[in-house]
């Protein structure tokens, strides 16, 4: 499998420069989801794309070293559980999915809008890890005899 370890030098160099930026952009989109366009889903997909980018450029070992498939699926379950927990915390106020922060913070600030940023983070974790897991599974499938 060594001959598949990535593309040419140019691609690798550019990837090294851009991957960090893509990841940062994804995180930015997630955190500002309640103020500007974007949100957990778009941000999560961007985060997943940054890892997929890495995988396409450097081959699968490199990307899986950063984030293994098992870790990805665990992260995904954690994200899902976190979302459910946020929803369940609404029971503190008596209702499922209640936005339980009493004062919502000043609009336009980063820390505002009650549960919305929390939900965004949970979703992005889930989406990012989940899509990466799908992709890794689809790619790994073609490397015969590697899995298990």
């Amino acid at each position, binding site marked *: 499998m060594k001959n598949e370890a990535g593309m040419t030098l140019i691609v690798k160099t550019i990837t090294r420069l851009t991957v960090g930026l893509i990841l940062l952009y994804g995180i930015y*989109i997630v955190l500002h*989801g*309640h*103020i*500007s*366009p*974007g*949100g*957990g*889903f*778009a941000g999560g*997909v*961007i985060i*997943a*794309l940054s890892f*997929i980018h890495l995988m*396409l450029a450097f081959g699968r070992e490199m990307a899986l070293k950063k984030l293994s498939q098992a870790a990805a*699926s665990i992260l*995904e*379950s954690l*994200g*899902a559980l976190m*979302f*459910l927990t946020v*929803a369940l915390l609404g029971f503190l106020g008596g209702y*499922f*999915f209640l*936005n339980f922060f009493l004062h*919502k*913070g000043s*609009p*336009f600030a980063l820390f*505002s*809008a*009650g*549960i*919305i940023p929390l*939900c*965004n983070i*949970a*979703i992005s974790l*889930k*989406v990012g890890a*989940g*899509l990466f*897991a*799908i*992709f890794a*599974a*689809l*790619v*790994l*499938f073609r490397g015969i005899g590697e*899995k*298990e």
Partner: protein
Amino acid sequence: MVFAAIVAVQIEDLLSSVIAVGAVGLGLSLAFLILKAPDLAITQLVVEILCLIILIRATINKDLPVIRDGRWFFNTTSTLLFIAIFLMFAYFALRELPHFGQPIMRVAQEYINQGKELTGATNIVAAIILDFRGYDTLGEATILFTAVMGVLAIIRRVGRINEE
């Protein structure tokens, strides 16, 4: 976009047809932007990229003989006839909708008027999907989770344990 869609369906080479679908998706993303839906434009764009990567992954490096479509004239005509009838009914039904550009906004106006005070989020779409209709979003996250689990389950190399 409609043109690109026709190309995508009719072209014979699979890779080109996948790329044509990409064109449809990007056109859709632009359309969302024109229709004042920036949230959707971003999401559609990135989702489209991901879809394309997955689809190309599925088609690339496979020896693909060009598959000719069925030559039965009858079946194609009947399908087209069915679609034509569907479109005709759709036309009559659509005439009774509110005109383009003037939605009724019964519930939506309340979201716009009070969304900021009630949730504190200035992005009203975010306020709707995560607060007013947060339960839907839980379902949506679950769908993705289901798909991941499904893919991981289908991709397993050995499905059954042989007793023999």
